[in-house]
């Protein structure tokens, strides 16, 4: 039995090596893609273009503009004279935030004479902030930054009147797990997971479908191979290539992209193997139920897009409605992203990650059994 499986594996590997384009692509492209994407994913949302409509031209309006420009998130690129110009720049996407400072801004804030004069209630002075809502993440970031800049102006003003001491609030922050809040450290592990997922699924899902389409499956059937052997012989090469791919990319993310590795390498390796095995099982099921490669590819695409959507990368799972949360529990990628981020960034161990680990074990067993069953059934 071992020999027969071994022979099938050798056949698969030879076939893989002979499709030069495929083998080059599978071994090199994922690593290149990881580097390219990681280099180009921003470190955060920074330097968003802002347009200013200053109708005041006073000392404090200029101060507010400086405060806005000093934030990391905002970059003032335009000063305009009219709302039409604001509208134009926002339409074109050349500005993502507009700040409108009304005439009388400085006057209103400094109009009363001495700070000793007690002022109990004064009408607030309004500043208009307009955000571009077409990208909600950018909008909430720019709005937050603008709020901060206005807050600083108020605080400075209050301090200059001696109403509060300069350090009126001692706001201490303690950022855990990723102290510089580097977006790259956050996204590289996710990209690692995505790419490994795709490579493995693409490899595992077409094997049987292709043999069936080209008619070579019949030849395999007249050999003494049993169904378990066929499934293992097809699955193991995909598992091996998928894991190899992961190892290469993992090394690149540590050495080239400088992503920290705070947890146990052994745990990560073990759970990655489980993850890849689950994906291989999914792939084998697709392969067994598709009659042509095209059909298999269709399934792969739909599955891959759904996995990416449910992975929690774009939308945190805890923000999803409950029926979607339920769905996402069946997506191995979602559990895996929690695991890989937990281990690499937070140094988490099994004590924190046991729910995800159990989910992966359960998914891999169920999918493994299902795929063995289906691959066997479809032989005739």
């Amino acid at each position: 039995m071992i020999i027969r499986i071994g022979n099938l594996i050798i056949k698969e590997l030879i076939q893989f090596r002979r499709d030069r384009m495929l083998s080059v692509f599978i071994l090199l492209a994922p690593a290149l893609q990881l580097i390219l994407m990681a280099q180009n994913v921003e470190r955060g949302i920074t330097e968003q273009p802002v347009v200013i409509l200053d109708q005041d031209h006073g000392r404090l309006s200029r101060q507010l503009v400086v405060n806005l420009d000093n934030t990391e998130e905002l970059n003032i690129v335009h000063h305009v004279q009219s709302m039409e110009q604001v509208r134009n720049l926002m339409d074109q996407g050349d500005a993502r935030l507009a700040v409108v400072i009304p005439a009388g801004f400085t006057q209103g804030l400094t109009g009363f004479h001495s700070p000793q004069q007690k002022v109990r209630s004064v009408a607030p002075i309004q500043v208009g902030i307009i955000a571009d809502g077409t990208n909600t993440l950018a909008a909430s970031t720019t709005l937050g930054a603008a709020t901060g800049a206005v807050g600083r102006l108020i605080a400075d003003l209050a301090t200059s009147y001696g109403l509060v001491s300069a350090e009126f609030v001692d706001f201490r922050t303690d950022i855990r797990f990723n102290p510089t809040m580097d977006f790259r450290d956050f996204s590289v592990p996710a990209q690692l997971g995505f790419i490994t997922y795709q490579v493995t699924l693409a490899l595992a899902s077409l094997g049987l479908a292709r043999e069936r389409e080209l008619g070579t499956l019949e030849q395999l059937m007249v050999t003494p191979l049993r169904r378990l052997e066929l499934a293992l012989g097809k699955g193991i090469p995909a598992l091996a290539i998928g894991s190899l791919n992961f190892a290469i990319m993992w090394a690149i993310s540590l050495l080239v992209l400088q992503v920290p590795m705070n947890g146990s390498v052994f745990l990560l390796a073990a759970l990655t193997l489980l993850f890849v095995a689950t994906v291989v099982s999914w792939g084998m099921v697709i392969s067994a139920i598709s009659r042509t490669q095209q059909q298999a590819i269709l399934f792969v695409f739909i599955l891959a897009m759904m996995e990416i959507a449910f992975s929690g990368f774009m939308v945190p799972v805890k923000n999803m409605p409950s029926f979607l949360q339920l769905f996402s529990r069946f997506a191995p990628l979602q559990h895996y992203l929690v695991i890989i981020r937990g281990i690499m960034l937070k140094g988490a161990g099994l004590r924190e990650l046991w729910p995800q680990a159990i989910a992966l074990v359960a998914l891999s067993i169920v999918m493994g059994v299902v795929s063995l069953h289906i691959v066997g059934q479809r032989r005739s």
Partner: protein
Amino acid sequence: MSPRRMAAIVRKEMLHIVRDPRNLFLVAFSPALLLFLLSYVFSFDVGQISMAALDLDHSALSRAYLANLTSDQDLQLVIRLREYTEAVPLLKGGDVDAVLIIPPDFSERIQSGKPARVQAVVDGADPFAGSQALMVLEARSKVFVARASMTARAQMVPWVEMRTVVWYNAGLESLLSMVPGLLAIVLIMPSMAMALALTREKETGTLEGLVATPVLGLEYLSGKLLAYIIAGLVSAVLALLVAVLWFRVPFRGSLLVYLLLTGVYLMACMGAAIVIANFVRSQQTAMFVVMLVFLVPSFFLAGLITPIGTESLGALLTSYTLPTTHFVEIGRGIFLKGLGVESLLRPTLILLGMGIGAMAIGLGLFQKKIG
């Protein structure tokens, strides 16, 4: 080039698409289905920060402070802690984005005019949630404490009030922003189908039959392209119906302009598909290349979730070479901003250039030969 021969190719391809239910599904129906499935993930609101609080002060002021922080939907207080040791496991398990600690002397220090102390422990592993949490907490704390300490001393300075307006998507609903963007991703499917069709002819040997006909390379490729663009437009209309009728995303621009620019986008993607198909022999490889070159980068680099990078030239270039980036901009521009073609000239011309360039390269590489 004979229009008659090209028309014959278009007809042949159309029959191919229509007669094979799987292919028909892939080309015409899968974008609508995928849009439907993907959009559901975004059909509720993102950006809420969940927080735990450890209030050691237990005063009216500290309660007012917490109430002030969580007065709107941005910040949600999910759990009140009793001791500090509870904080770290919560953060490690990802249950909250931040933990706020109010020390026992919080209100006393404010009343006596000393700087108040608060501490926030933030999960930096998710930088978006983390920095959002930090920004919101810090800004609101400053404003609250400044007002509280002035009230304590019965003095006020004039206040600045921010009047915030969000244009194009007044409620900052992520669904409205994502659906026009996701359309660009799901409309990769027709191009994928075309790459598969091109490689399948090689793999199953039917290209040989075509080689023996008088059809020229140009006629073959442009006929195929035309057929798939038409089919792609049908799929775009179906997906558009899902967006407008099911998800009720406002469509503020002109339908004609949108379809025209969708055609340009499909041409750019399909041009790339022709180039890819030239180099690969099997459908498996074609799928793999399309996934790696188009699909995954589109999720990360096309400005769908985070705005495209402006930090470095490399980032800008990578994003700009992806056709998806430009169509995300076009989609949001037409759907949400109601822009006409004159305001979308830049992305349109880039896509047009890409399409024509890729077609020229694809044609130059294509050889009507066997082996």
